[in-house]
């Protein structure tokens, strides 16, 4: 049943090699059709006679074979639940895998969806469909031929199966096989060979029942396209790129578009300390944020510096004529950018000459209202400012107006100012809380679909009871006075504490963490899902769980008065908080009380309370203070970031009240013991599993990162030492100003921005010295205390359990490479979750200020060339106060066109207007209002109230009604809708 054929292949690895591999051809690969009586079928038929599709092109039942280009370009069409009975050839699958891993992933999901009837046919190993590469045939041509051979074979095979008498009697039309390809050459050859063939767009247009599917077709060319002049230089061919990269004439790196200036971006090149600056539309040359590009470095005399100007693109229209006016405008802007740069420090500057790999994804945004009526062509404005506008063609523009939609880019030809794309789907009406949250989740790549049936099937069955066997395995701590302290409204309680006096005068402190790894067994669907999600994501008023709710809010949550499984870390300490002994074990606990920080604080402060819980809390509080002091003495940093809480309306989910988060002693008490538990566990697992322990490190930032902080402090007359964490911490403590109580906090906020990201890593992958956690000043650290909301903690639990013999190990647990991959994903998910959380706060801030105007006290955080960065401590809010508008007067500051002129002093970073000078950290009063003129980017407008500058500041008494009116109207309308 197996025959042997060999094929040779040449690969280049410096020198040319001849590689001979075996290739077995088989006769036991089934065709997967329920019409076939000949094939050996080892699984359920995928190709069935159900799902007949009405198609004006092929008026008989048919199976579809897809060419590679159709899968790559039309994945959005395929994802619609329209096409069924699709034959997926392994040739195609491999090509797709090679060309785009993201599309491969999406396509694979379709293949796995049983209801879609996609059948993978291993044509490469089937004895009748294998196509040996002929001499002088390119790999591409061979693959095309293989696809045709397989299509032909399928058609013939099915004809043979359907030629039986019985079938003829049934009177059904015979099922044929058609090939969809967008490759003209392949199509012509297929027609010549007698294969039924169509292009993807022809086929989709011929589907009578699905007229709207046409919108989702990838746009390689626009109909009625005016052949415009090339607006961009041509890209180099792949061959030239590789050549240039090899002899180091070109540099390769990931392109990052600037958020603030659409004519600027940078490329991160490995081995280059500084990123390479790219300025101007032609130098950017159609690169989209994230793309892997090849850069040519400009000669040093043409180097420039990043502008500090905020530049936004003005309205554009679908007709896309490069008007001279705009070109002139652009030149002007560029000049402005460059002259601005001339004086500043120059950095390596380059231009993009080619794209090594596109990283296009799907983008959220809205349609720009079209000026011309009755047109199919529209401009799509992405929510992410780093992404250029996209031209799309849709017939449902009227319906999509005022909706958030998703669009994907297909091509970006030289003669088009904007990339071409197509509509994917709509998310819902603008301004709707659910839609906006969906946008945030999608933009940050947060997996948020419902848990699948398979995942839920691994949950414990209710009613869940603790068996005798469980008790026998665990240490019974039900009698201890354990309690939990959390923020109000917390339902996923993953930690609880206790402290009691021992007869020998020492104290016993226990940290009890929800035993999530007991419920989530390695390798099952539930575990995989949790691992993929990585973390629970908190948006304002919404939580996207990492594990299903039954676990997160019920079985794992250490709620008061209920018996729960816990993983305990217990220390014996003396009165001075010196650790004398430690032990880890799984336990059964019964939390005596679930408290909020406030409640706990009240109990501690109230001398009348003398019960066990109160005593326990007071001990903990006292020990925590000692621990904290010790940590500070070691050089741990106290950092600050403005954090706020929203009071959310339970019905409309709209924010009612904003308040800055309050820190109480009890917050720090819980935090201190969590840190202690994490460090203790990290130490333990790192010594038990030197190769594969999951740890967390926080690298020390390079000194250059501290520049803005050091400079800002110096102008205030303070010296910030960055030599070591300890010195930094001490010098931060000294930054106190009598007249500005918020000064210290602001300095700490600036310090926070200098920090690097803390990351998970595997102990075997780094040297021990690199394990260091800079912010905590701990030589080793991990996450152990929140397994309900972080997957890293589940991994740590499993390692710890294995090390104390409470659970068995399994292969993947000890697999360094696999763990590294997981850590990589976790780091990514954590970063995204953080960004999503911030985006959600920003969104709610906007909602809160809708229709309001408030004057607030704030401080200048830094001074920029054309703006002041202002921080409002009350809301933890940061915003930009524009001092100079660019020429067209956007940002609603027409007034500044008058004589008010600010001069920027680069020496000491100040802005001067008349006798008013703005320094960093100066107090100001600003008026906040919401600018809704751009529905997609509603933004808070900061206007100066105090110090008063005539012609610039807002008049204190006369309300500027014109500015305030549009937003307030909008709110009213919105409310009516609800």
């Amino acid at each position, binding site marked *: 049943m197996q025959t042997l054929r*060999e094929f040779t292949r040449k690969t280049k690895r410096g020198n040319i090699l001849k590689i001979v*591999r*075996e290739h077995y*051809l088989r006769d036991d690969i089934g065709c997967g059709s329920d019409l076939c009586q000949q094939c050996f079928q080892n699984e359920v038929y995928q190709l069935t006679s159900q799902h007949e599709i009405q198609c004006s092109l092929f008026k008989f039942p048919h199976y579809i074979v897809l060419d590679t280009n159709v899968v790559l370009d039309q994945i959005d069409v395929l994802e619609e639940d329209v096409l069924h009975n699709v034959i997926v050839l392994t040739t195609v699958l491999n090509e797709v895998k090679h060309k785009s891993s993201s599309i491969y992933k999406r396509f694979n999901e379709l293949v796995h969806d049983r209801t879609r009837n996609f059948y*993978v046919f*291993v044509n490469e190993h089937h004895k009748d469909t294998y196509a040996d590469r002929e001499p002088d045939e390119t790999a591409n041509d061979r693959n095309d031929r293989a696809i045709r051979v397989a299509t032909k074979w399928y058609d013939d095979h099915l004809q043979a199966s359907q030629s039986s008498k019985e079938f003829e009697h049934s009177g059904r039309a015979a099922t044929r096989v058609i090939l969809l390809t967008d490759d003209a050459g392949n199509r012509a050859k297929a027609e010549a060979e007698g294969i039924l063939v169509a292009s993807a767009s022809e086929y989709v247009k011929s589907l009578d029942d699905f007229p709207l599917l046409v919108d989702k077709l990838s746009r390689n060319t626009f109909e009625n396209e005016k052949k415009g002049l090339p607006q961009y230089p041509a890209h180099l061919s792949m061959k030239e790129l590789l050549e240039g990269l090899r002899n180091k004439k070109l540099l390769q790196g990931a392109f990052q578009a600037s958020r603030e200036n659409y004519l600027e971006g940078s490329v991160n090149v490995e081995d280059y300390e500084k990123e390479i600056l790219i300025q101007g539309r032609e130098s950017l040359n159609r690169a989209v944020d994230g793309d892997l590009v090849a850069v040519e470095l400009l000669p040093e005399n043409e180097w420039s510096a990043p502008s500090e100007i905020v530049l936004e693109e003005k309205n554009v229209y679908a007709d896309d004529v490069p008007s001279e006016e705009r070109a002139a405008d652009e030149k002007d802007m560029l000049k402005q950018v460059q002259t601005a740069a001339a004086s500043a420090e120059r950095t390596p500057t380059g231009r993009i000459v080619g794209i090594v790999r596109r990283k296009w994804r799907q983008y959220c945004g809205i349609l720009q209202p079209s000026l011309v009526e009755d047109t199919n062509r529209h401009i799509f404005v992405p929510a992410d400012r780093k992404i250029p506008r996209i031209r799309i063609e849709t017939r449902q523009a009227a319906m999509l107006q005022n909706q958030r939609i998703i669009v994907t880019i297909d091509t970006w030809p030289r003669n088009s100012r904007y990339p071409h794309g197509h509509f994917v789907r709509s998310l819902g009406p603008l301004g709707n809380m659910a839609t906006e949250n969906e946008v945030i989740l999608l933009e940050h790549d947060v997996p948020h679909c419902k848990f699948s049936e398979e995942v839920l099937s691994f949950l414990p069955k209710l009613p869940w009871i603790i068996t005798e066997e469980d008790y026998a395995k665990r240490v019974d701590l039900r009698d201890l006075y354990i309690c939990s302290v959390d923020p109000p409204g917390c339902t996923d309680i993953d930690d609880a504490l206790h402290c009691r006096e021992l007869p020998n005068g020492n104290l016993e402190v226990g940290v009890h963490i929800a035993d999530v790894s007991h419920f989530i067994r390695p390798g099952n669907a539930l575990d995989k899902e949790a691992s993929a999600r990585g973390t629970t994501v908190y948006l304002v008023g919404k939580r996207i769980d990492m594990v299903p709710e039954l676990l997160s809010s019920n079985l794992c949550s250490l709620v008061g008065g209920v018996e729960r499984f816990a993983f305990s870390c217990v220390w014996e300490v003396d009165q001075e908080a010196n650790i004398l002994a430690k032990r880890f074990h799984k336990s059964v606990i019964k939390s005596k009380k679930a408290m909020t920080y406030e409640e706990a604080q009240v109990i501690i402060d109230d001398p009348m309370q003398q019960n066990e819980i109160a005593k326990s809390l007071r001990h903990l509080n006292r020990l925590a203070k000692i621990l904290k002091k010790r940590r500070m003495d070691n050089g741990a940093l106290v950092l600050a970031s403005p954090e706020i809480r929203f009071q959310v309306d339970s019905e409309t989910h709209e924010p009612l009240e904003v308040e800055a988060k309050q820190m109480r002693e009890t917050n720090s008490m819980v935090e201190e013991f969590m840190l202690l538990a994490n460090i203790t566990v990290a130490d333990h697992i790192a010594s038990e599993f030197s190769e594969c322990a999951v740890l967390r490190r926080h690298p020390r930032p390079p000194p250059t990162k501290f520049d803005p902080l050091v400079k800002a402090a110096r102008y205030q007359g303070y010296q910030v030492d960055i030599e070591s964490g300890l010195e930094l911490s001490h010098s931060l403590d000294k930054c106190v100003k009598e007249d500005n109580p918020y000064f210290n906090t602001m300095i700490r906020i600036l310090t926070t921005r200098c920090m690097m990201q803390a990351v998970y890593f595997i102990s075997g992958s780094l040297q021990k010295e690199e394990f260091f956690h800079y912010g905590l000043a701990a030589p080793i650290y991990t996450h152990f205390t929140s397994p309900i909301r972080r997957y890293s903690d589940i991994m740590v639990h499993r390692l710890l359990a294995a090390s104390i013999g409470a659970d068995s190990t399994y292969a993947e647990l000890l697999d360094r490479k*696999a763990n590294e991959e997981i850590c990589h994903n976790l780091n990514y998910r954590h970063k995204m979750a953080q960004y999503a959380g911030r985006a959600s706060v920003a969104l709610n801030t906007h909602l809160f200020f809708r229709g309001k105007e408030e004057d607030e006290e704030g401080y200048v955080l830094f001074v920029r060339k054309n703006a002041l960065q202002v921080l409002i401590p009350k809301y933890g809010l940061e915003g930009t106060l524009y001092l100079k508008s660019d020429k067209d007067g956007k940002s609603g500051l027409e007034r500044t066109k008058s004589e008010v002129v600010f001069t920027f002093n680069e020496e000491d970073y100040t802005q001067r207007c008349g006798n008013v000078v703005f320094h960093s950290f100066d107090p100001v009063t600003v008026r906040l209002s919401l600018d809704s003129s751009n529905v997609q980017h509603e933004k808070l407008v900061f206007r100066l109230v105090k110090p008063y500058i005539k012609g610039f500041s807002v008049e204190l008494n006369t309300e500027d009604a014109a500015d305030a009116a549009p937003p307030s109207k909008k709110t009213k309308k919105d409310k009516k809708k609800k």
Partner: protein
Amino acid sequence: MGSHFELLSEQGLRLDGRRPHELRHIKCKLGVFEKPDGSAYMEQGNTKVLAAVYGPHQAKGKKTESNDVVINCQYSQATFSTAERKNRPRGDRKSLEFKMYLQQSLSAAIKSELYPRSQIDIYVEVLQADGANYAVALNAATLALIDAGICLNEFIVACTASLSKANIPLTDISHIEEVSGGPMLTVAALPNAEKIAFIEMSERFHIDHLETVIETAMAGCREIRDILEAAVKEHLLHMGSAADWARVG
């Protein structure tokens, strides 16, 4: 153990189109040379090996003092056997290691009590290397020993096994599967006695999987044994044998 490359497709086929439990194609021939006392050629997929046996003959020098048979092996890999040309055919670490392993495995199979103070020389040459080189070399050596008429306890055969990412054991690992990063296990066994003469792992297996992988390799050994036995019978049919053993059973 994290193989970066998936060795088994979702359709249940390996990179070269085999199913997990399938061996590569095996071709073998005994008595390919005139000069040596025994010789054999063995092809397992693209791995091709020649083996020659000289002896038993009188051991030289100090070796005569021991009562045991001296088994002297040489493992050599032709310079053209791999995609990139090798510098040294023998004498490198890998070859010396394989030589030791061959001696170890073969001494378990040869009835050494029959050959006191004598020496058996076994020369193995790998002509083309495409994975499981050691295993194929040992199988070829077994055939050559049989051809030389040296008494063996039974066939000693070797087979390799690995584990796919989905933890499905794979038999008879090819070169591409070896370098794709999966762990590999080599077992040399006396299949009838169910004894393992030699075992080697390229990486650690988790204890949960070790047993199934060994069992897979053992199953491979049994299958190879049957093929070798058939080849020996075929050879004897042509050569004729005193006991007419080939016609039995």
